[in-house]
């Protein structure tokens, strides 16, 4: 059914592409782009294989890998050894994220056809970023997690700083500063756990932390808050979000597809996996605050999206708003909520990728994303406008698309635990519709403001959009498609939460 080192193969499969690219001349634009896209295909095939094998009932333990990596003495206790292993493992949630990563990477690689310069460096960094993302979701211990986490930071920094728009350097810098602080906090937590407990293996930590009274309550609480901050920067949680707006606005759209689609989700992944996984009881006592933060995120993002004049900014704030739903789901601390949060992670990944791909397409033609300068796109580019409308409708939670399922389950969860807060949060559903329609309609409907004749989407440009829309609709119409794989993961989490 499965074969050894499948996860390693997945994680490091982009290396092949990097190697080939290294020996490709700089100037051969189309060859480089082709290699760049092809290099993401093996990972996609392998992750799909993994997903299918998992759905057909392969045991999760079959995927796990462990190789001894480094050992060093524990200075405090004689004859005891700290060891860090190279270990990869997967569960339902991470398999889902791996598939999502592979898929969005391929689509983003296709979307990179709009990149205008230095394709070689771009794709090498791109593939490096992909390795980092795979690694994060497959890592079996915190040290590896952290290493891969950092690997995602640095290529992203360069990708934003070099291939972005006007204020790219500033955006890249604030990306690095915020995320650097976040990962520094994460490192402190990891090292603390390592020093106190002696292992960083995720499963081991989960059982140790839940069984033994190994750390005091207040220590655990502090660690959890540190984790929330560390991943909250990534997610981002209000008020740590301003870097993310800049990145959304300044980074090249293909990178934003990955950024909004996967990188932000690392925050959610970490929060669910480590925040809830390690400290379920403390998380429970913070649940109200998490939910309140979620509602604030939701409303704050929505209100700000309402008055933005740049479509990319609207999307950026809408991402913040949508991440609020993840928090709402987590704050609900019941299976509906957690499932909603995970669905939102996946769904927003797909939707954000779709929307930014469309931004890339019309920016390519109109060279602006200002709402005031756009209008009547439905006449010149009906297909693009149609996809844009589909993206917006999906994003505002139209039933039949993935966004609704996520929103529905998150709120279903929250209404059980905190009905009043949930009712306030529902205001966000209305606001989401308002700001998205305002933005999208002013781009697509109305008088044509741009006079230059433009061509509608090319066939190659349609491929990512069609795939994304199909997935969004598939999840929306039949959510059990991915929900069934998550049952065990969610059960584990919810049992940890004691409910």
């Amino acid at each position, binding site marked *: 059914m499965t074969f050894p080192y499948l996860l390693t193969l997945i994680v490091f499969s982009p290396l092949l592409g990097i190697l080939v690219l290294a020996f490709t001349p700089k100037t051969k634009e189309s060859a480089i782009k082709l290699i760049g896209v092809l290099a993401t295909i093996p990972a996609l095939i392998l992750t799909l294989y993994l997903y299918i094998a998992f759905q057909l009932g392969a045991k999760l333990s079959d995927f796990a890998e462990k190789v001894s990596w480094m050992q060093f003495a524990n200075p405090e206790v004689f004859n005891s050894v700290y060891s860090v292993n190279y270990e990869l493992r997967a569960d339902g949630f991470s398999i889902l994220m791996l598939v999502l990563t592979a898929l969005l990477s391929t689509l983003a690689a296709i979307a990179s056809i709009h990149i205008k310069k230095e394709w070689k460096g771009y794709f090498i960094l791109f593939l490096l970023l992909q390795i980092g993302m795979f690694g994060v979701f497959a890592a079996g211990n915190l040290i590896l997690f952290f290493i891969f986490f950092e690997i995602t930071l640095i290529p992203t920094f360069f990708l934003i700083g070099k291939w972005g728009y006007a204020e790219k350097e500033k955006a890249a*810098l*604030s990306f690095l*500063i*915020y995320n650097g*602080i976040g990962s520094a906090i994460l490192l402190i937590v990891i090292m603390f756990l390592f020093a106190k407990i002696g292992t960083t293996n995720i499963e081991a930590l989960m059982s140790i932390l839940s069984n033994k009274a190994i750390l005091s309550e207040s220590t655990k609480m502090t660690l959890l808050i540190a984790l929330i901050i560390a991943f909250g920067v990534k997610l981002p949680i*209000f*008020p740590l*979000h*301003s*870097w993310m707006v800049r990145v959304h606005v300044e980074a090249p759209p293909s990178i934003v597809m990955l950024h909004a689609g996967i990188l932000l989700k690392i925050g959610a992944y970490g929060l669910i996996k480590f925040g809830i996984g390690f400290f379920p009881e403390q998380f429970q006592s913070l649940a109200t605050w998490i939910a309140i933060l979620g509602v604030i995120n939701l409303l*704050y993002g929505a*209100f*700000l999206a*309402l*008055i933005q004049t740049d479509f990319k900014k609207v999307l950026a704030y809408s991402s913040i708003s949508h991440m609020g739903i993840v928090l709402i789901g987590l704050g609900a601390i*019941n*299976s*509906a909520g957690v*499932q909603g949060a995970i669905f939102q992670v996946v769904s927003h990944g797909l939707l954000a990728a779709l929307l930014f791909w469309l931004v890339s397409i019309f920016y390519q033609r109109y060279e602006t994303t200002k709402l005031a300068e756009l209008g*009547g796109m*439905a*006449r010149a580019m009906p297909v693009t406008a*149609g996809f844009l409308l589909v993206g917006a*409708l999906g994003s505002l939670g*139209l*039933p*039949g698309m993935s966004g*609704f*399922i996520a929103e*529905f*389950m998150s*709120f*279903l969860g929250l*209404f*059980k635990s905190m*009905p009043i807060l*949930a009712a306030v949060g*529902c*205001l966000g*559903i*209305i*606001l989401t*519709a*308002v700001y998205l*329609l*305002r933005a999208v*309609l*002013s781009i*697509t*409907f*109305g*008088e*044509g403001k741009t006079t230059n004749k433009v061509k509608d989407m090319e066939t190659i440009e349609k491929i990512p959009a069609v795939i994304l829309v199909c997935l969004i609709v598939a999840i929306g119409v*039949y*959510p*059990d498609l991915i*929900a*069934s794989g998550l*049952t065990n993961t969610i059960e584990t989490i*919810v049992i940890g939460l004691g409910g």
Partner: protein
Amino acid sequence: MMEFAWIIPLFPLLSFLLLIVYGKKWGSAAPYIGMLLTFASFIVSLLVLVARFENPTYKAEATWLTIGDATLTAGFEVNQLNALMLVIVSLVSFLVHMYSKGYMQGDERISVFYSYLGLFTFAMLGLVLSPNLLQTYIFWELVGVGSFLLIGFYFYKEEAKAAAKKAFIMTRIGDVALFIGMILLFWQVGSFEYDEIFASVSAGTISSEMITLTAILIFIGAVGKSGQFPLHSWLPDAMEGPTPVSALIHAATMVAAGVYLVATMFPVFAASEAALMTVAIVGAFTAIFAASIGLVQKDIKRVLAYSTVSQLGFMMLALGSAGYVAGVFHLTTHAFFKALLFLAAGSVIHAVHTQDIEKMGGLWKKLRLTGPLFLIGTLAISGVPLLSGFFSKDEILVATWVHGHTILFLLAIIAAFMTAFYMFRLFFLVFGGEARGDTNHVKESPNVMTVPMWVLAFLAIFAGYINTPWFGSFLGDWLTDGNAALGHGHIEGPIWIMGLATAVSLLGIALAWLIYSRKSLSRDWLSSRAPYAYQLVNKKYYIDEFYHFTVVKAASILSRVARLFEVIIVEGLIKLITAFITGLSKLGSRMQDGQVQTYGTVAFLGLAVLVIVLALTGGYL
């Protein structure tokens, strides 16, 4: 046959998908595909309805989503109400498809139009078939999208854009209430299935406050969809869409979905007197409120739109007065005569290329077919005896009276009077008198447009006879068969109500005739006597302006506050962090001045600090 009911919505879905993908290629063939497929679903609906007469309710479902212990299902159900609705929806939809072939002739985006119609029909049929609240909600929203797309069909018109946006957002406000109500109910019952909800309502496991709350929340959803006060103002604006759309969505089907929802959830409402009362009051108020606005509108479609709002109010009033049968009955008859009116209006607009009734007139002679058809519709809606509207409106009035809402009954009577008046005002202004505009090249519409109108006209006249006090209340008995919670098939009321209803509608017609046809009363006789009242009504009670100055302003102020917060606090935070880090870096780079002594100083300072700290903390002293 009923087990194949799931296939009904799939025909229009197929039409939508085919046309959205291949529409451009097929071009003028698109209308035929749409017509064919909706006709197929009409035939199946008819078969299902016939099958439902003999067989009990059929229900099928499959697992859709697992959440923890709860399993949500998707499926379909055929009961009396939705079998009836299936036929109404698919019939009107088919007729509108047919009519549009003529109306939209020559539009280059006709295939898009048909694909949207397909999407809408799919969603509406799906809504009708849903066996649970969640599925209803899903299709409920999809119906909204279909309506949104069709209102915004002329996307290049700013008004259409604004109207589409407004329609979507205002109905969404209602939808969110429905969403909340639905979830609250789920946590009470543990299921979205109607059967289980009704079972636990009747078993009394839910507290009565909760029932009232959820019922009212669900009702707010219906208010949004059905254009009831105070969420009504999108519906008149929605007339920016093509006229066939107005007939299909904003008269016959979608806006009736609110009424349908309340009807479906009727056992829940029936369990709470307060909820019923709310429904009745909102319905009655909307009925008279919208009718009064309809009195002064100058746009043919807007008059009809306000009349729709008003009629929907009647239906709500019926439901709120426990007149389940009356509400559904009026829903049925209204679907036919209002669709007829809209299609006829469309035919007029098609002929004269304007919607302003001041520029029409004297069309009776020009439009030999449309005129009588419009008259039939007008007579039906005005409640002239022996037409369908007469019977259903009578049922509503009886239900209201019997339920004891005397004030609401009076309001309804006044609204009925107004209805008759403004409808005939419309009729006389459009068809009667002399031509006020250029009517030289006015031509009657083609057959493809008139045939659907004839079908509707036939139904508008005779649909009433399925439930009359004289020939037996067949519809009512069938609808309430086997479900006591829905009330009786027919409510006996005093006979004078029928007489009164007839009298007020005839009075209204007579008044309209006097003012607009005989001109024995000056047109501005009333408006000149009460200019402020006239202004108030003409401006639609300033509802839009009120929303603009409250809700919209509040949202924009909140947004601005949020932006201020963003700029000052959040950006301030990042500025602080960057300032801190750049400050440190500046300090560091100032140290690097190339002078040995500076380096020495820094190194020694470090050493000194280290030594001192070590001495203080390490316990070496």
